[in-house]
């Protein structure tokens, strides 16, 4: 029974069938592709490629092996920059969260650094590391470190006082407290922050690759245009970037479902 109670979700209604659940998303995508194709057909002199041309370009990349190489290159940079940031940021964030003084001292600086686009660091990155993988990884590290630190710090602030009190009550040492109380307690918020930051890192890698390296999906886009106005490859690159970004996001959303994390999602009502 589908009852449109103006947004009210009543228990015994809105049991849409499985097929209609898949139908709508596909319809949306189909509509988009159709509009795109029509738009391109109406402007035959435009350089913008249609969906078919893009699909062909993706095929071309796959066959030549470039698809695999570039995707791996981009993922490689993201992984290293991001993981390094994660390993450093979580302890820093926890330390800052626990130390009132430390936070007061450093937080203003963090807030100041936060709005500085990682890409603004490009000249410095190139200065220090030259053009290449390390510069790109440095930019990704920069882009990830601050948000992850702030996430960890805020998560520590949000730990229920009663839990810390219980830990102290049971005679836990500092190290045990961190391991048995603090880390499990911040996990839900941390994972959400990790997912969002991974999204940012993915954005940055593409931008960084446009400027500082010679492989990867970002490079593909710039190179395809510069080397021969291959806009079908440009859009193919965009599609791939979008797809991988979605996959990365889904991957981390899976983590949110684990039992050690799931408790953090309180039912809103």
């Amino acid at each position: 029974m589908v009852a449109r109670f103006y947004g009210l979700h009543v228990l015994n209604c809105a049991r849409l069938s499985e097929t209609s659940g898949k139908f709508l998303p596909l319809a949306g995508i189909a509509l988009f592709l159709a509009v795109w194709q029509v738009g391109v057909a109406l402007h035959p002199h435009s350089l913008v490629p249609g969906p078919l041309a893009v699909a062909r370009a993706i095929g071309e990349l796959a066959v030549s092996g470039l698809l695999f190489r570039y995707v791996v290159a981009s993922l490689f940079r993201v992984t290293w920059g991001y993981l390094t940031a994660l390993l450093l940021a979580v302890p820093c964030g926890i330390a800052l969260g626990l130390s009132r003084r430390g936070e007061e001292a450093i937080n203003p600086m963090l807030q100041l650094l936060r709005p500085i686009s990682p890409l603004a660091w490009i000249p410095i990155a190139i200065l220090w590391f030259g053009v290449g993988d390390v510069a790109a990884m440095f930019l990704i590290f920069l882009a990830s470190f601050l948000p992850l630190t702030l996430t960890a710090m805020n998560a520590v602030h949000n730990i229920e006082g009663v839990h810390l009190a219980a830990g102290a009550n049971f005679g836990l040492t500092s190290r045990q407290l961190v391991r048995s109380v603090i880390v499990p307690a911040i996990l839900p918020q941390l994972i959400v922050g990790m997912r969002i930051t991974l999204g940012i890192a993915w954005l940055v890698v593409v931008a960084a690759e446009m400027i500082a390296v010679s492989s990867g999906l970002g490079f593909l886009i710039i190179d395809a245009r510069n080397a021969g106005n291959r806009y079908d490859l440009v859009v193919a690159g965009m599609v791939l970037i979008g797809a991988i970004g979605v996959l990365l996001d889904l991957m981390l959303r899976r983590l949110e479902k684990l039992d050690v994390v799931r408790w953090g999602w309180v039912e809103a009502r």
Partner: protein
Amino acid sequence: MRKIVLPLVTAAVLLVAWHYAVRLSGTKIFPSPVAVAKATVALAEKSLLWRYIGDSLMRVAAGYLLAVILGVPAGILLGWYPPLARAFNPLIQMMRPISPLAWMPLAVIWFGVSNLAPIFLIFLASFFPVVVAAMNGVRDVPPVFLQAGRNFGLTPRQQMTRIVFPAVLPRILVGLRIAFGVAWLVLVAAEMIAVDSGLGYLIIDARNAGKRYDLVVAGMLLIGVIGLLLDIAIRRTERFNSVRWGFKE
């Protein structure tokens, strides 16, 4: 008191450390804090700085406001009609991770090398967070409010204006703040590539034109300060009574 002294002291310590690191490493290129300060002053005097800041602000305002004006209604619609959301959500999720910079070649085709290209990129970057925030906000409106609305005999349009919109406002504000942060980041990147004024341009140009890293760092700091001030300004809106209830004290 401690809240002001402590950060200032830390900042001072870092500045001194920076200064000596530059001195000790003997680098000829990386600027010391003093050099950066001098460069900033020189820029301010030359009025170029104000022009650049103005251009950057103008671009971000145009792209961001457009995204808000289009994105909030779109998000509310998507949240209100679940079938619409189901149809378009996958598209949104797929377009969101595409770095606005990846759109650069297309932007240049459509808008040429002009102000419109970065504005378009900023629009793209801000649009999705705003839509998603509005959409999720509407979906999460507690049913009690809607039930009460129906009980009091509100028409669907009244439901929208008198219940959904006020209830969603805090979430939208959060989305606006996040979207602005993204817009600011993208602005700088966009200006590095497609235009010839603005803070992003300043950084790239300073390096390309003469390895003026003191200007580069000055530009970075300016970007940080202005971005922070704007973020604080947006946060201020969260204190209004009509939305304050939505934020934990």
